[in-house]
């Protein structure tokens, strides 16, 4: 029996381990949500959660961890290299870069998450109802979303920025206006498939009103993909904020945001000779987006019962 047995692979070893534990009765029925456990067993997702939490906490508790006021100018000490005094050095106005990044995170994350949440609220509210109800309203919203989505988003954003002007609140509104389409369509698709579920038909057979069916009974079952979508659009909007800053149309330059910090790299002199002005910002932005994407992917995997691991 064993003579011809193939070499033991990594997988086989894993199998043996599971089998042994199963036989000795070590594996008990686990408590808690299966999805949650699965998320926690996804190494990248955990890394993402750690990265994002660290940056988030730093931003929220910025006054506790920053020695300097991010707005405090020190013209005589501008462009200082990273040192003990200034952890990441100072910028062209002598502001502490570490403090700027930490405080900038507040605005950038607010823009990213706020826009993602508001567009989710809009998209889900419309998508859930029209997706369930169908009919003319559904048709109109579908066409509308097609128009919004057929248009290159950044171009639409640019148009809106010129119309509405720059500013934090405007940016969130603009991102919402341009970003609701994706989540709307996803919610709608979810509702379309949920609509065929028999419990929905049963509720209709009881004569429940459409709002209750759509929002109370169906929506909770579409929440998985919606959360994934919110996560991923948070990442997207943070990148958009940076891109808009690059084009000079983002949040006004006097407010520290990650985009505005990194934007300085457009100036070749800073790009080439004063790396500390933009490299830390670029790293933080990329790390945060990476972390959020990790979480989003992890959530997607854990919400998907098809994938086993």
């Amino acid at each position: 029996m064993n003579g011809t047995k193939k070499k033991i692979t990594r997988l086989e070893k894993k199998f043996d381990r599971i089998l042994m534990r199963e036989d000795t009765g070590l594996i008990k029925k686990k408590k808690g949500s299966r999805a949650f456990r699965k998320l926690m067993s996804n190494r990248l997702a955990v890394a993402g959660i750690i990265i994002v939490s660290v940056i988030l906490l730093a931003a929220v508790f910025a006054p506790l961890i920053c020695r300097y006021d991010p707005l405090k100018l020190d013209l005589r000490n501008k462009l200082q290299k990273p040192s003990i005094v200034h952890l990441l050095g100072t910028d062209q106005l002598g502001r502490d870069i570490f403090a700027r990044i930490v405080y900038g995170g507040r605005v950038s994350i607010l823009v990213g998450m706020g826009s993602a949440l508001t567009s989710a609220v809009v998209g889900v509210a419309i998508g859930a109802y029209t997706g369930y109800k169908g009919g003319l309203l559904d048709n109109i919203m579908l066409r509308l979303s097609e128009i919004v989505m057929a248009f290159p988003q950044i171009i639409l954003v640019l148009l809106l920025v010129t119309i509405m002007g720059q500013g934090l609140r405007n940016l969130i509104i603009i991102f919402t206006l341009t970003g609701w389409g994706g989540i709307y369509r996803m919610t709608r698709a979810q509702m379309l498939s949920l609509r065929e579920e028999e419990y929905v038909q049963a509720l209709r057979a009881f004569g429940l009103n459409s709002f209750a069916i759509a929002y109370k009974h169906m929506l909770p079952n579409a929440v998985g993909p919606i959360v994934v979508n919110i996560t991923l659009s948070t990442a997207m909007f943070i990148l958009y904020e940076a891109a808009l800053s690059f084009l000079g149309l983002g949040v006004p330059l006097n407010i520290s945001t990650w985009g505005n910090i990194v934007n300085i790299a457009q100036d070749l002199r800073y790009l080439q000779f004063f790396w500390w002005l933009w490299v830390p910002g670029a790293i933080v932005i990329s790390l945060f987006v990476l972390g959020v994407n990790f979480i989003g992917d992890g959530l997607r995997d854990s919400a998907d019962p098809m994938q086993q691991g």
Partner: protein
Amino acid sequence: MKDDDVIISVKGLETFFYTNNRCNKAVNGVSFDIKKGKTLCVVGESGCGKSVTASSIMQLLPKLSRIENGEITYHSNEGDIRIDQLKKNGPKMRSIRGSDISMIFQDPMTALNPVYTIGFQIGENLQYHTDLNRAERKGQSIKLLKEMGIPLPEQRINEYPHQYSGGMRQRAMIAMAMACNPKVLIADEPTTALDVTIQAQIFELMDKLKEEHDTAIMLITHDMGVVTELADDVVVMYMGNIVENGTVDDVLRKPAHPYTKALLESIPVLGRGKNQVIEPIKGSTPDPYNRPKGCQFAPRCPFADSSCQVMPDESSISDTHSVRCLHPMEAV
């Protein structure tokens, strides 16, 4: 050595699944024989391990599973081949698959590749197991389709699966499986997705093929009616074990295992009238990750006692009939 008419013998097969860091002992010590030119029906409820057994024979198990123990022997013309010792997708295994042992699946809609024509998919089988050239393969495919009762095969060979109706798709599947005249045809619930009138057609076809080609058929089903109509031998499975094994007469007329008996009594039978008495089996199938100790059926069995805490051995009732129970039913 087994008698000559056995084509595949399975002995003590154990196949476990390892998903989500748990181990499911889907097939836990199963032994039976498939005989030449006979139909073996494997019957059981969902999750009893009948499909896994079939997949084990074909070595078509998913990645996160493996055959732990046991022997699967294919008694070929060139001598015995231990299938369980072959490399999963190695050349030897591949030369057996589709040529000596073929398989058809439950839902022909998903089992056929939607983007290739039926002709292409049948031709593929011929391409890898025969020396026929392209034109000959096409001719052979048309012949096969005709034999399966598909009208206008010359035309339909160029059609895609979605252009076929459900019954026709299953016929095409069978044509594909029969392309190289296999010794054994494993049919995994081939008619579950079909209507009864179509099911009758498919069974008729399978019967005909069995007669004409002397093919052994391993038919997996959950329907006792199907067993009654088609089987020569019957294997009843419950939670990864064979609980009863015998000829169709043995098992249906003199069910020895309480599970078999209960199963037969719980289904309404056509023709017995409106007032027939059916007796439900109490409880439900246990969670495979939380199996009862000993006899798997014990918690639902009206005859169970404390001795059933130990897995009973297989015991013979007659030459052809065996049962895995400490309290086998008296023959009626």
